[in-house]
């Protein structure tokens, strides 16, 4: 009885103007809630999820595109500037979406389990960190002993150049690392890529001697950012100053700018992924994932195609690395641990490997769980710790709770659970990928002929 009722309701909701109204209501509700209570996590969640009602309801593509643009280009930045923590969450979601989409090309399409994906992220990050900081001038100084007032090697605007350099360098690294190992069987490949990830991290940690390239575990800082035109800051203030409630500083604008950068990268990745997926290359990748032996027997050059997947995936990670170095102005080897690689992998697996909307959903979910739920719990616990409250029955004072129990530190638990549960219960992910339906080409041709000769 109830399922039938539900089915009818959802059917009714899919008709006519209903989806449009629902999407709009969701968006407006989210925006309003966040506007009224800028500190509420719940309100923010309502806003973020409006993106997914946008995705799931059936509506005109142009409407969806417009609504999506309003959401990402207008509402998110303004909301983010009002509460800088939200901007951080949105930025991280975009960064991880981009990384996950890049990894998705390798794992989801070509079926190569790459456990060292952040290695390429690190390559991009250290590339700009080296050339965009004073590191060049302290090559001969041990970490911490450099003189002060050193010049920068390159101007901050070289950042834009390095976005493109990073594509090349990361792709080359991918080819270099991939060439010897891509003929290995899948499970070996996974362990070897893990090894490469660790090698890159250990190198970053130790290449402070004999020449100080990476400044060791302390990391490189300050890293330059591209110049922010005053016009942008003023313009934003003039347009949204009243809504935001305070004057926006250039620092805030930087955050918005890097968020928009990440967004641009995401759009480019989606574009490239879609186009490749529908071509000889994408079909070869999927064929390799499905059955290597059959693929190679059909004339698909296995190693070359795998290298291509590796290189494309790596180049996107490289770009995001440059972005990370620029946005954080500080990087250290810690950001490129094995855990990060697994974090990105769990996003791909959760959302659905091979599925673009799935992977974005996965990245958003994991990031929100990480940043909002786990950290929210941490905050709550640390508040409890400062009170006299006790846990009833066992009579345990919250104040005695170890600070090691900080939920924010339990990301591994989260990633681990996601991977296990998804593999057992839903290996295709939350939004499984779907093959494109093709219009029969002959029908179209016939139709053309028919119209051509009436």
């Amino acid at each position, binding site marked *: 009885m109830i399922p039938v009722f539900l089915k009818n309701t959802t059917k009714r909701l899919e008709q006519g103007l209903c989806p449009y109204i629902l999407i709009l209501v969701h968006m407006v509700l989210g925006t309003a809630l966040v506007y009224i209570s800028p500190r509420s996590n719940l309100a923010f969640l309502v806003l973020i999820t409006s993106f997914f009602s946008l995705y799931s309801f059936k509506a005109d593509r142009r409407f969806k595109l417009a609504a999506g643009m309003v959401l990402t280009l207008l509402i998110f930045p303004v909301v983010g500037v009002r509460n800088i923590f939200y901007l951080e969450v949105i930025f991280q979601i975009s960064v991880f979406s981009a990384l996950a989409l890049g990894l998705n090309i390798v794992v989801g399409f070509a*079926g190569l*389990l790459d*456990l060292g994906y952040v290695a390429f992220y690190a390559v991009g990050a250290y590339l700009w960190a080296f050339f965009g900081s004073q590191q060049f001038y302290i090559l001969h100084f041990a970490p911490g002993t450099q003189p002060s007032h050193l010049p920068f090697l390159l101007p901050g605007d070289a950042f834009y150049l390095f976005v493109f350099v990073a594509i090349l360098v990361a792709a080359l690294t991918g080819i270099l690392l991939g060439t*010897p*190992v891509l003929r*290995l*069987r*899948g*499970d*070996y490949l*996974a*362990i*070897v890529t*893990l*090894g*490469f990830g*660790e*090698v890159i991290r*250990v*190198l970053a*940690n*130790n290449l402070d*001697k*004999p020449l100080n390239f990476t400044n060791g575990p302390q990391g490189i800082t300050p890293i330059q950012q591209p110049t922010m035109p005053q016009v942008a800051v003023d313009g934003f203030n003039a347009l949204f100053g009243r809504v935001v409630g305070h004057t926006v500083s250039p620092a805030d604008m930087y955050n918005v700018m890097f968020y928009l950068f990440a967004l641009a990268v995401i759009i480019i990745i989606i574009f490239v992924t879609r186009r490749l997926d529908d071509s000889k290359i994408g079909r070869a990748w999927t064929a390799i994932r499905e059955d290597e*032996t059959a693929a190679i027997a059909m004339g698909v050059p296995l190693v070359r195609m795998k290298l291509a997947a590796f290189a494309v995936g790596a180049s996107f990670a490289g770009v995001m690395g440059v972005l990370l170095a620029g946005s954080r102005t500080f990087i250290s080897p810690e950001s490129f641990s*094995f*855990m990060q690689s*697994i974090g990105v*992998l*769990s996003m791909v*697996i959760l959302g659905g490997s091979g599925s673009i909307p799935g992977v974005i959903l996965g990245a958003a979910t994991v990031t929100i769980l990480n940043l909002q739920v786990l950290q929210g719990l941490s905050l709550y616990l640390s508040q409890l710790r400062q009170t006299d409250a006790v846990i009833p029955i066992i009579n345990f004072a919250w104040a005695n709770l*170890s600070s*090691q*129990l900080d939920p924010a*530190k*339990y990301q*591994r*638990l989260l*990633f*681990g*659970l*996601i*991977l*296990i549960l998804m*593999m*057992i219960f839903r*290996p295709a992910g939350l939004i499984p990928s779907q093959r494109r339906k093709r219009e029969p080409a002959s029908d179209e041709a016939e139709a053309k002929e028919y119209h051509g000769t009436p």
Partner: protein
Amino acid sequence: MKRFLKSINIRELLRPIGQMILFSLGSTIVLSVIVLLLALILDRTVVGQTLIERLNVSLFTYTLVNLPQVAIDGLTIGFVYAAIALGYTMVYGVLEFINFAHSEIFAVGAFVGVEILIALEKFGILSNASLVMAYIYLILAIVAGMLAAGALAVTVERVAYRPLRHASRLVPLISAIGVSFLLQDVIRLTESLTSGQFNRIMPTFGNFDHRILFGKMAMGATQITLGVSIKSIIVIVSAVLMLVGLNYLVNATRIGKAIRAVAQDHSTASLMGIDVNRIISLTFLVGGMLGGAAGVLYALKFTRIDPFVGFFPGLKAFTAAVLGGIGNMTGALLGGIVLGMLETYAGSFMGVFTMGAAGTEYKDIFAFSILILVLIFRPQGLMGENVAQKA
């Protein structure tokens, strides 16, 4: 009694001991010769001069004097790797699956053993224990670590791998990575809840830290004492005992025969009346127990453990298993010993040979380089047969 003695297959007891001696001596000799040759060559270059200026000793002498200690250290860690590697190799032999969570099973073993000893210490039992009792407590800790790790390995297989046995190859691997991460934080959570911290120190008791001295050697102005700590001897002896026991189990008993049959072919084995699931559980149990014991031994040797302690030993043991030829038990033994030796030699001498540009800090990725080289040039490992993927 006589019949029992008769039923023991002496050959299967002696064979692995012979192999161990052969592998240990072989790798010691080969590596020592290589290192000494390198030292001889580098002695005439700027490397040797730097050392003379610094320590007033030639590079060759320096190398020669340090060699015995390095060899013993290498052997100790090599046997630990071998014990862990056997866990990987047995599971791979039976399921063709890399049990990525094996490193955490090792860590759980270490924690259980260490926690028991810490508890004993808290009650003042350890500090008053006689030497005999100290050994009994250590054995107790090792056995407890083995049981806990074995039980955990069986549970993990049942919960996270068995439902995925017929899925494509990467699916159980991803699940195993998940288990590995989950267990790391579960250990951390449990330790944080019970003891308030997650770094644990192996209590000092008995005479394990004592060093048996062989003598002294002059190295320039300083004197180097040669010796071996009781710890290292315990680690090596326990590992040898376990490896002999395992070899016996697999090669000379009915259960072992069943394990080998399942490794050959699941469906045929089940047609022969073997309960395949039971044998797989058993494989995980045995592999887990070995890993758990290795964990306690590791804690004994290196004293400090944390929830992530399994990661590098696990990966290196996997490398050892691949190096020896995955699925091959003698290979795992050989791989473990060779890798432990290689790594210790490299870690000890690379710093001096490269004038400090690259030293011990690269020890952990050294194993990976070996893994990659092996997989590229000899994917079947040192002792494995060529396992071409079936078309």
